[in-house]
């Protein structure tokens, strides 16, 4: 791929997978703004890693051929970026708590639609499922997200999250059971 084609190829890649990547970033953060920051940082790391730039936080170069990374690698970059973001935020919050000027920013993650309404015929059903997904504990929800909307296997999920494969499978099962229960008991 020529250098001229590379930006357009990456733009096409992001247009296709950006929504799934943002969904995963939301699982790794506490607000929509944080999710967007993390996604932006992760994409920047991948882009720079592909260019062969070292020492910028990218764990490894995807392929250094100009081709965008596969989804699994992109999820890894998002997770690393989220960890770094959480560390920075932790320090910032500690500083703010020491200051008399504390800005309380509301967590708006629950108010943002994670899913579009054109997937299911009934908007009401979409809202029910979305609410049920959001109510899942984070560690179950991230496995569900990677499995359903990331199309990853349990082996890949275990690798991304640094957990045993059986744990990934059991978390998925727990998530599905809870969703099923929520959706059948919801009036």
């Amino acid at each position, binding site marked *: 791929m020529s250098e001229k084609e590379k930006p357009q190829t990456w733009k096409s890649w992001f247009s296709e997978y950006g929504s799934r990547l943002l969904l995963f970033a939301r699982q790794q953060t506490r607000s929509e703004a944080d999710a967007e920051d993390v*996604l932006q940082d992760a994409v920047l790391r991948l882009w720079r890693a592909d260019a062969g730039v070292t020492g910028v936080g990218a764990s490894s170069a995807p392929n250094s051929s100009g081709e965008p990374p596969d989804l699994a690698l992109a999820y890894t970059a998002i997770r690393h970026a989220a960890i770094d973001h959480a560390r920075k935020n932790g320090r910032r919050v500690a500083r703010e708590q020491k200051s008399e000027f504390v800005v309380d920013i509301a967590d708006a993650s629950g108010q943002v*639609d994670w899913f579009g309404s054109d997937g299911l015929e009934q908007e009401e059903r979409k809202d029910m499922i979305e609410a049920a997904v959001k109510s899942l504990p984070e560690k179950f929800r991230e496995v569900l997200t990677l499995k359903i909307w990331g199309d990853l296997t349990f082996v890949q999920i275990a690798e991304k999250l640094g957990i045993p494969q059986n744990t990934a499978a059991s978390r998925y099962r727990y998530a599905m059971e809870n969703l099923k229960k929520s959706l059948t008991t919801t009036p």
Partner: protein
Amino acid sequence: MNDENEFDELEAELRQLKPTAPSAELEGKIFSIFDSEEKIVPIATPQHQETIMHWIRPIAAAAAVLALFLGVALLLRGSLGGDVVEKTEPKKAITEIDASFHPVKAGNLIMPPTDEGVIYDENNEPQRSVRYKYHDRYQWIDENGNRIELSVPQERRLLVPIETD
């Protein structure tokens, strides 16, 4: 009933849900990453004193790193015995690097700024906090094509006063 069949219907329903696309603003920010190009300044024809100063700093930094290695080697000599240090000959290595590598690139990559929102300064005046991140990058190369790359992350935070009248 096994697990797969048990959740098939729900899985299919979940897969129909399409995650919402990133906002146009976020997409624009990310596309700007792909459009950004590093500005490379050829070091062979420096015309300004400022460009020369760009080189003095990283070379000094590289020298400091080599001096650190030398210090560590001397410490190891004290703790591990003389054999290890005798084989490394650190002074000779420094001379070889200085002679064979020459600078070829200096540039920087500026990332999109982050708006951190409004904060209040010590006078209780509102200020908009904007954070800029960029990397200063330098590269040396020797006759055999071996490269040394130095990337220095930089960060600047600007406070822009907000008019309240």
